[in-house]
């Protein structure tokens, strides 16, 4: 049986959630949980809805904070989908927390080093490895953009709860995913394609994955890893997921230019783009960034087009 950690977590975190619009301490009775569902596969992403639109255009228009992290390591591990089962996953590339592996917990991640330029961002970010001619491409870096969701009042946004786990994109997709969720582009450009475009040598390939920005206020994870999160729509979160959290767009930049025909993801093909996030930020620092940047509607940083390779 897998953990049901989040069940307990929600009990304790409920006190925090109740300060906001969250529904308080509902669903805290483990005896009511159907443990047979704990090993259910990752749910279809459609249960989370889709964003109204993706973020495009110049940065600097609206509030955001940005964390850039260098590549940390690659492992066939996935502490969300295959906890304590090293080697069970397709190959992932990890950023941020340098200790992330199949056994990772919030506790184990808390004291680890980070590859991020925000030293208090010790969160774990990962994505399937990109292969070129079946060899792994070591990414240049990742960029995590934390913004209000489209048209969401920035002053209402709460930080991700400690220990939140979420997945965006569909590792089993057989058709193009919405580019508002998974997109490929070159450098910091405006292009948003469902498969990798041919990029110039100075504006190399990036995959962007946008996570849901509404939380149910209770669970740091749920069986299937989707149902506790939802995308906002019309600038609002649904009643089922009433807590607006930052819209995290996570991008991975690769030293890849030119013909993309020799590329594939380790999750299969090029339509299976996805990414995972495990919140092990220094929680006070994350809270501070949300308050000082998003609530105050301030651009706290950008990814400069002068720096991307």
């Amino acid at each position, binding site marked *: 049986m*897998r*953990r049901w*950690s989040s069940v307990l*977590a929600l*009990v*304790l*975190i409920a*006190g*925090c959630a109740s*300060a906001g619009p969250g529904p308080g301490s509902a669903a805290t009775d483990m005896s009511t949980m159907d443990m047979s569902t704990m090993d259910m596969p990752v749910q279809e992403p459609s249960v989370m809805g889709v964003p109204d639109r993706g973020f*495009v*255009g*110049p940065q*600097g*228009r609206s509030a955001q904070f940005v964390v850039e992290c260098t590549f940390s390591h690659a492992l066939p591990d996935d502490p969300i989908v295959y906890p*304590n089962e090293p080697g069970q996953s397709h190959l992932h590339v990890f950023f941020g927390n340098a200790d992330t592996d199949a*056994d990772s*917990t*919030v*506790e184990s991640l*808390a004291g680890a080093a980070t590859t991020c*330029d*925000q*030293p*208090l961002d010790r969160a774990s970010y990962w994505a399937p490895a990109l292969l070129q001619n079946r060899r792994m491409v070591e990414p240049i870096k990742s960029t995590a953009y934390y913004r209000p969701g489209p048209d969401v009042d920035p002053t209402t946004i709460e930080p991700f*709860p*400690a*220990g939140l786990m979420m997945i965006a994109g569909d590792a089993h997709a057989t058709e193009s995913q919405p580019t508002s969720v998974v997109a490929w582009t*070159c*450098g*910091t*450009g*405006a*292009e*948003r394609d469902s498969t990798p475009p041919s990029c110039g040598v100075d*504006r190399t390939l990036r995959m962007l994955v946008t996570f849901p920005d509404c939380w149910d206020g209770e669970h*740091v994870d749920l069986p299937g890893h989707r149902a506790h999160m939802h995308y906002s729509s019309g600038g609002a979160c649904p009643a089922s997921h009433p807590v607006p959290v930052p819209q995290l767009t996570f991008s991975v930049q690769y030293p890849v230019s030119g013909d993309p025909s020799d590329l594939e993801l380790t999750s299969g093909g090029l339509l299976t783009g996805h990414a995972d996030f495990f919140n092990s930020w*220094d*929680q*006070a620092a*994350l*809270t*501070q960034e949300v*308050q*000082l*940047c998003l*609530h*105050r*509607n*301030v*651009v*706290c*940083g*950008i990814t*400069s*087009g*002068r*720096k*991307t*390779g």
Partner: protein
Amino acid sequence: MTTRRWVGVLMAAALGLAACGGGDDSTSSASTAAATTATTAASTTAAPTTDAPTTTAAPPTTEAATPAGSGAIRVPEDQPTIQAAVDAAAEGDLILIAPGTYHEAVNVTTNNLTIRGLDRNEVVLDGQFEMETGSRDRGASGVAVENMTAMNYSKNGFFWTGVDGYRGSYLTAYRTGDYGIYVFDSINGLLEHSYGGGSPDAGIYIGECYPCNAVVDDVTSEHNGLGYSGTNSGGNLVIVNSVFRNNRAGMVPNSGSYELCYPERDTTIIGNAVYSNNETDTPAIDVAILAMGNGILVAGGVQNRIERNRVDDHNKTGIGLVPFLEEDPNDVEPSPDSWTRPCAETKNDPVPDPDTVPDAILWDAKQNSVVANVVTGSRVADIAVASLGDVAVLGNCFADNEAASSAPLDLEALAPCDGTGTGDWTAGLIDIGQWLVDAENAPPSVPYDKAVLPPVPVLDGMPDPETAPANPAVNMPPAVDLDAIGVPELPAS
């Protein structure tokens, strides 16, 4: 479930509870206060953790009791940390910081504060490579930061963003992972008597503003990727009486659609000493490597005024007006009739439709004037203009410069500031494409925390820090008598 999982869950929950313990503002100091109490309490004994030699300035006198000081919030006497003082302050307050090393990343959110070190060289904010920015003003207008040093931060020394009214005076930013002194999306400001050294981007930066209404006066920027940079800034933006030396490139204002308020325009650069910007061993962003060996390089900016500067010893150009090719941009190039639109207005424009965005924008340097500069020792050309298109139609002008070489040849005859030019625009053009090749072969960036730098300079501090009254950044910037500024001399060495 494994035991480890459960423990992790408990930890997550505990962290979650801890995170929600504070109110809207009190959490802003939580992380720094906890980390800094120990060091700041004994701040005069804590040595900065850096491979750079410490300063040798004599301890300042701190016993003076003054009318200004008596109303001030003193660190550490009244508040144990700078952050605690900032959080306790009301609008208009003066914060006086005693000499010592402060391991803090200070966030400022109250308007009209004056945050002052009592000794520029001995009040040291040290991020120890574990903190992001020494002082961050996030949307608090009218804040003045003065007379202190920030070093060893993973991003910036001093940072203002989203403010109306700012002033940085007698600041030293040293060994930072992004910028030294960084101003973004802010208007009505002054940076003066300050220093930026050892950053991969710009030692001094003002970007995304029009009209900026800002003055940079008497700053020194060295051993950075770029001495000065400003992306998409301008409009009463005046840079005078300053020194930009020993960077990869000296002064590089530029345009780009990756952030708002393009193009860069109407920056006034007068009376600066810009020399020996050929450094090969600094931290450097990509653009700094591309721009290496140039003194004043306008990269796709328009309507800038470059006058009476002293420019010497550059491997490429002394003063160059060059294109910036932005591949995969975020918008179409704005038409000249929109160059005067305020930045604030463009924030409300519809988001560009990606389908209408071209594959690239060639930002040409247009309608700039280069007048009465003294330019020497350039290995490619003292003054130059280049384009990937027709360089003759860009409307730049050159007059009264002391320059031994130009590209194209006889540039002042081709493009005078008065009258009609004559000559051959194709003679002696520089090969801008070669710069891309040069960049490929240039010495790569050195990590900012490993770069070999001169010691932290000991620099003049502000007069009377104990007694000078609070001086928030209102009515900024001061007027500058541009006509009174002459061509500066180079240092004797």
